[in-house]
């Protein structure tokens, strides 16, 4: 494999920290008195500053995986480390952008972003400056005092991204951040996210349903299958950032991944077969 490390990609601000390592992750939920295996033997090493995209069918455990890395759920087997340190609980070093923006409707944009800094030990005016800088970063200057219901979907999602960036996390986890947006806004925000990533250089792990998006942004695209959720394929995208959407390389890779995803094997997990049977 001739994978070019992110640090050799021109324009990328290199970082020494932000290495995420997942080893033998197993996760199951108890569902109707049965064990539902959601993730099985999931292992992945993400380099500092790397952008990894994860694609996979609905229900294959992508959101579950991010919740584990974020520290929202501690009940799993295997190990997750950030820069060699075992992950326990949430941390400001690991940011998370949810699929829905999850801004608090009773707070202004400014206060929503400021909330992320609540427990940072820095002076008030430094916090205010960080908030203002990040509002500017996502192009929302002038909307500081707006409430979420006064923002469009795309603006709210940008605000959510600003909120997760304000702590300058070593790794940013993005769970289908643009899933709910129209195609045009999505393209626009993808470009912006790429710009921010190039400027900040933090590690990014992004989940998406959109193979094109995964390829456009990712240094690597991880393809998952369901039942149980596991990695079936990893695609290196050896193109410098910022990228050209029309690149024939991206199109070729896209066809490959789509072929992989649309080939659906019989479910091997008896519980899932059972649940599917229930539905009929």
């Amino acid at each position, binding site marked *: 494999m001739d994978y070019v490390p992110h640090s050799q990609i021109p324009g990328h601000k290199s970082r020494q920290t932000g290495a995420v390592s997942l080893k033998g992750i197993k996760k199951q939920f108890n569902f109707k008195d049965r064990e539902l295996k959601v993730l099985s033997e999931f292992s992945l090493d993400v380099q500092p500053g790397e952008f990894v995209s994860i694609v996979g069918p609905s229900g294959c455990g992508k959101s579950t995986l991010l919740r584990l890395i974020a520290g929202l759920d501690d009940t799993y087997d295997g190990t997750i480390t950030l820069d060699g340190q075992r992950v326990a609980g949430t941390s400001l070093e690991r940011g998370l952008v949810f699929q829905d923006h*999850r801004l608090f409707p*009773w707070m202004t944009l400014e206060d929503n972003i400021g909330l992320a800094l609540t*427990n940072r030990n820095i002076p008030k005016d430094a916090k205010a400056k960080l908030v203002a800088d990040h509002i500017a970063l996502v192009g929302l200057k002038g909307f500081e005092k707006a409430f979420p219901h006064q923002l469009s979907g795309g603006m709210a999602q940008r605000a959510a991204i600003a909120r997760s960036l304000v702590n300058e996390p070593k790794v940013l986890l993005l769970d289908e951040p643009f899933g709910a947006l129209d195609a045009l806004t999505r393209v626009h925000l993808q470009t912006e996210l790429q710009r921010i990533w190039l400027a900040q250089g933090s590690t990014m792990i992004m989940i998406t349903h959109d193979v094109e998006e995964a390829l456009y942004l990712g240094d690597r695209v991880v393809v998952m299958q369901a039942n149980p959720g596991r990695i079936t394929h990893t695609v290196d995208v050896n193109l410098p950032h910022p990228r050209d959407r029309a690149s024939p390389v991206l199109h070729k890779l896209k066809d490959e991944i789509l072929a992989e995803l649309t080939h659906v094997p019989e479910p091997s997990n008896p519980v899932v077969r059972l649940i599917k049977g229930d539905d009929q």
Partner: protein
Amino acid sequence: MTLKTLNLNAFKPVWLLGLIPPVLFLLWWDHEAAKGGANALAFVSLAQVSQALADMLASGELGLSYGSSLGRALSGLLIGGGIGTLVGIAMGLSKPVEWAASPIYNSFRQVPILGWLPLIGLWFGSGDLSKLIIVALSAFYPTVLYTFEGLKQVEARLLDVGQIYRLNGWQTFWRIQWPAALPSIFTGLFQALAFTWISTIGVELLFSSGAGLGALMQQAQLQARLDIVLVCILFVGLTGFAINFLIKRLSQHVLSWRSIRA
């Protein structure tokens, strides 16, 4: 003049429609009262009612009774609503408290407020303390219920965000749970206000010693002074109306973040 000042839509005479039924009613009333005769006791003329109003205002009787009722309602609301909110918060935040308090709360709630009167009368007499307890109870029930429900319904997806940013217990409560529960808490306050006013008048009617609009009505009834009764009813009704109006305004203001995009 700008176009804006000429905007006729800004003038909405809808509330005037609400005046039609009472005006029609008053006209009919006066017409009936003028008949006199057998109907004389049931119907007093509007002139008599206005005279009674003027007399009661002049003697200070109305002011005293009204002030006393209003004071009782407000202190009952403050005490019952305050304790109710605290109990609701404790039940909403702590499972053990919920398990310990729910059964007794839910069974006591089945007893109508005025059903407590005999017991409280026996324990505390029929003075101001007993009345205050009844009024406070009527504010207590809805505030507990709606504070508790409001906190229970805070979505896990919002609490996740608090966890991601490592908010501690107090920060989570103050920045997320409390504001998220506020619409429900306001609904409770709304009900508490209505209940306190009604139970204030009710308890004054039943424990008719001391000052208050209810007591005044009770005495007027014994003296067959329908005009005084009517003045009292008028003030009870208008006050309830004003209270609802104020609460609505207040909740609109505090919950302005909920407003739907126009």
